[in-house]
């Protein structure tokens, strides 16, 4: 395995991790499996696409001479995608959480509502923008650089660094801030939290916006490699969900470990000559099924206490 492959694996792990941690966090704190995560991904992808169309000439005019136009555009696109993801998080909150969160069978009902929301959003995007795939400009750097005698793609390194920074700050915020304390209190015992004056409704909103923003970032980062399209969110949603399951639904360290494992499996399967890219999904799901057969609670149980 050369360094390029390891970086590729970590790059995949970063994007899958963003999706899986979003799904896992939402399950453990709010108690819903968010099937609309793929829609958030697609919406943020389109937001980034339009931000790029609008921002590219602007950046060239303002900063073209300094050479900072591409990094500035990258930051701008990233922020727009984060914002779009967070806004769609609010939509999910209003449609799939607020009306039913204290009714019976919230977990199943919210699953159905978010699934419907996902389908409706994909259809709406198809209707509005058509099925054509759209390409984002390559704003996270192109080309390769050589380190330790091996060539590494710059955009992959940027993705890994950006994801690590963002996830690190999110986890630090969860550990340190008062809101983070409230969110963890709700995660562990919703009724106890209510008796501490912590309202589930008020903690669910920031966590929905946060997970939406994570999906938005994942959309921008992955769109450097694949195209923006109405159905672009399906594969990331499925992979995010299965990785969250592999990690033990609700466990953040488990989701990170699962994402790294799946990223390496994908990179390795693609590199093995007789398997190749075609067998990636097959190998991944076989692996996940095997792990879940041995450990039905997922990897998370090894790492920390999960919900229930």
């Amino acid at each position, binding site marked *: 395995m050369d360094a390029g492959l390891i970086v590729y694996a970590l790059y995949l792990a970063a994007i899958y991790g963003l999706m899986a941690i979003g799904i896992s966090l939402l399950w453990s704190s709010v108690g819903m499996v968010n099937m609309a995560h793929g829609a958030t991904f697609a919406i943020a992808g389109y937001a980034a696409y339009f931000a790029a169309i609008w921002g590219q000439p602007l950046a060239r005019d303002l900063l073209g001479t300094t050479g900072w136009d591409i990094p500035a555009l990258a930051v701008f696109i990233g922020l727009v995608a984060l914002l779009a993801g967070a806004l769609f998080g609010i939509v999910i909150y209003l449609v799939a959480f607020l009306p039913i969160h*204290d009714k019976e069978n919230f977990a199943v009902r919210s699953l159905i509502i978010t699934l419907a929301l996902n389908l409706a959003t994909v259809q709406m995007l198809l209707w509005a923008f058509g099925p054509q795939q759209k390409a984002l400009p390559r704003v996270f750097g192109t080309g390769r650089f050589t380190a330790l005698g091996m060539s590494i793609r710059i955009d992959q390194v940027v993705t890994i660094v950006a994801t690590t920074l963002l996830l690190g700050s999110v986890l630090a915020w969860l550990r340190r801030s008062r809101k983070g*304390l409230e969110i*963890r*209190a709700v995660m562990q*015992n919703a*009724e106890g*939290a*209510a*008796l*501490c004056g912590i309202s589930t409704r008020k903690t669910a909103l920031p966590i929905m916006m946060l997970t939406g923003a994570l999906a938005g970032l994942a959309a921008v980062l992955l769109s450097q490699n694949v195209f923006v399209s109405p159905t672009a969110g399906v594969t990331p949603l499925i992979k995010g969900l299965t990785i969250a399951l592999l990690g033990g639904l609700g466990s953040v360290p488990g989701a990170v470990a699962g994402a790294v494992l799946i990223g390496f499996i994908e990179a390795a399967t693609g590199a093995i000559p007789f398997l190749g890219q075609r067998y990636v999904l097959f190998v991944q799901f076989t692996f996940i099924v095997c792990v879940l057969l041995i450990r039905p609670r997922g990897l998370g149980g090894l790492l920390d206490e999960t919900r229930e």
Partner: protein
Amino acid sequence: MSDKLLSITGLSAGYGPLRVLHEIDFSVAAGERLAIVGLNGHGKTTLFRAIMHLVGWQRGSVVFDGIEIGGTRSLGEGRRTPGIVRLGVAMTPQGDAIFPGLTVKQHLDCGAYTKASWRDRALRRDHIYHIFPQLKALEQAYVGKLSGGERRMVSVGRALMADARLYLIDEPSLGLAPKISQRVVDALIDIGLDGKAMVIAEQNVALLSGKVDRMIGMHAGHLRGDVGHVDLA
């Protein structure tokens, strides 16, 4: 009515088809410490949970400090609970609804829900450590790893963190060794009630005898007899 901190009239509550409380009337005056005694399964916990809007359905009036917090509802369990807590009702749930993955310190911070109490939470924590000295050494320990008595102390301490005016303490002795439950109860009795009130639900009458202002019996969802000051000794 004005000196009544809490007055309940015609409160019925239950879960689904099960009716646990039958038209309960009672009131608590400011500065009063009273006990509700009765056997398991006769509605003491349900009474507290109905005040906090945590039962399946309820009807009847609950007036806390001039504000109606009762009413009729059959859904929305827990929806109004944080609001009621913020009005100044602190409840320690039965069996310590507690956050196993938080440290004692974080757990106590969770109780400081008002802006003012969050600002001087360190001071308030010190006050709790003064009441329960053994918690000081366990400050960084995870609550899930503590013994039952220590957990009860954390639970009671959490309720004392903010400026509540009504404390609802559910079964302080449940599942504890006699010596430890005595200590928890003594700490509860020592808490000054300056214009506040405390209601303790308890099975073990002997534990509270001679220590509370008033005792009310509870049987099969009805309050039976307001026996006043009881001293079994």
